[in-house]
């Protein structure tokens, strides 16, 4: 869908940026309110709902038994996908997965996978024959801006509260899925010439390039993604990385507070 009056919106965002203001009144590095609920969907082995400003996403974890890849006979597998269905915004059309939804799923997937928070060997049941496949599906229900961070948060919260349904598959007792860390994503968009954290819908519409950073428990980087047209300097990156550290730590505590309930 063509964005209505993006030029006027861009001008307004630039005008506000000159006074270091944002279109929704937040400070440059301020986050919108985030609410996290876990374990709320009956058929998912792990589930989470994230309400992040006007953005609402659900994530659900399912398990399947599969044969391991021949070159990795003792390792299970992980798959993370996101759907941007037309329910989420007037701009999304029905049809096959868009490049945007594929990028979203893959960026979240990399952050989780590369953090090593799931030990693939622990998903092995019979070497060479039977392993667990873990599938995280993310369902974006309302796109009010910054769906990347909301999806990343929902995915890791659903994983960290997931129960492996071993009894249903007749391969032992149900047990918690071992997830050893909590990778968290922080996203920035250039709006009005400078980067802002947690872009709202208008800033995404009238903004430029975006950067997504996933940090692990020890503040190591696990995934980076630059999206959309635009260029940035190493100094700008250093600045937003510092902001990302603080927000990732806060959100990691939020996930921890929902576990064990």
């Amino acid at each position, binding site marked *: 869908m063509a964005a209505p009056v993006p030029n006027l919106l861009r001008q307004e965002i630039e005008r506000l940026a000159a006074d270091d203001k944002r279109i929704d009144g937040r400070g440059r590095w301020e986050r919108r309110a985030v609410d996290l609920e876990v374990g*709320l*969907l*009956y*058929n*998912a082995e792990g*589930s989470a709902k994230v309400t992040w*400003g*006007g*953005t*609402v996403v*659900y*994530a*659900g*974890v*399912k398990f*399947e038994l599969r044969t391991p890849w021949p070159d990795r006979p003792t390792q299970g597998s992980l798959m993370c*996908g996101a*759907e941007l*269905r*037309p*329910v*989420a*915004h*007037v701009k999304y059309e*029905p049809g096959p*997965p868009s490049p945007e939804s594929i990028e979203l799923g893959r960026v979240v997937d990399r952050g989780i996978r590369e953090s090593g928070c799931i030990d693939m060997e622990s998903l092995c049941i019979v070497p060479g024959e039977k392993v667990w496949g873990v*599938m995280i*599906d993310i*369902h974006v*229900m*309302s*796109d*009010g801006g910054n769906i990347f961070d909301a999806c990343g948060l929902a995915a890791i919260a659903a994983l960290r509260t997931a129960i492996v349904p071993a009894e249903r598959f007749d391969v032992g007792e149900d047990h918690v899925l071992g997830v050893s860390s909590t990778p968290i994503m922080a996203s920035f968009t250039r709006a009005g010439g400078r980067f802002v954290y947690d872009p709202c*819908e208008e800033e995404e519409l009238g903004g430029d390039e975006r950067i997504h950073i996933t940090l692990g428990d020890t503040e190591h980087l696990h995934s980076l993604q630059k999206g959309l047209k635009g260029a940035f300097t190493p100094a700008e990156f250093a600045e937003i990385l510092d902001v990302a550290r603080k927000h990732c730590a806060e959100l990691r505590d939020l996930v921890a507070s929902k576990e064990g309930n």
Partner: protein
Amino acid sequence: MMGGYGDVQLLRDDGKRLDGRAIDEMRPVEIKVGVLPAAQGSAWVKQGLNVAVCAVYGPMEAHPRKIQRQDRAVLDVRYNMAPFSTGDRIRPGFNRRAREISKVTAEALESVVLLERFPRSKIRVEIEILAAEAGTRCAGITAASMALADAGIPMRDLVVGIASGKIQDTVVLDLDKAEDNYGQADLPAGICPNTGELVFLQMDGDLSIDEYNLAMEYNYKAAAEIHEIMVAALAARYDGGEA
């Protein structure tokens, strides 16, 4: 799978059902509207363990132009199950079942929405099932009519989706998953609570005419109960909580 209909014990010795419900008792229903900020109107319906969420967009320009109607709006309705909504994960994408449910749901809603008020336009109704425990099409229809109301789309009446069925030769209200899988019949209906009209009807299995009449009596009883919950949900959002 079991060998056939009716050979699984679904009624207890005390006449109650496996989850403790009486034969004419529906599962608990909770409803909220205005749950999705990006949508014009939205609703969340929990019926038993089913969760259905619906977003409404529009009225908006209908394109491509060949779908336009000169004298009325068209309803573009999609029913979709999230991959994690079922016991075994389902692959994303539109399947035959989802297409059929989308079609009959659209036709149910077309019977109540005042489409003639919006010529040449389109109203999008997006139903997402997040958890499925038998009865998702009914929860979806209830959610859709609530989301349309939340969007301020004029309608003749709301629509309540509700099903009755038969287990162990006994007519029961609102089948759960086991009863749906191993029961003998399922009769989902879309009922307009004010006019008493039916705008959606399906059935499969085996019912005598007397059993049909009893099942439909249960459906109407439940529709009146659910209608109260629907009105309260709208009042909670728009009328300071006074129904």
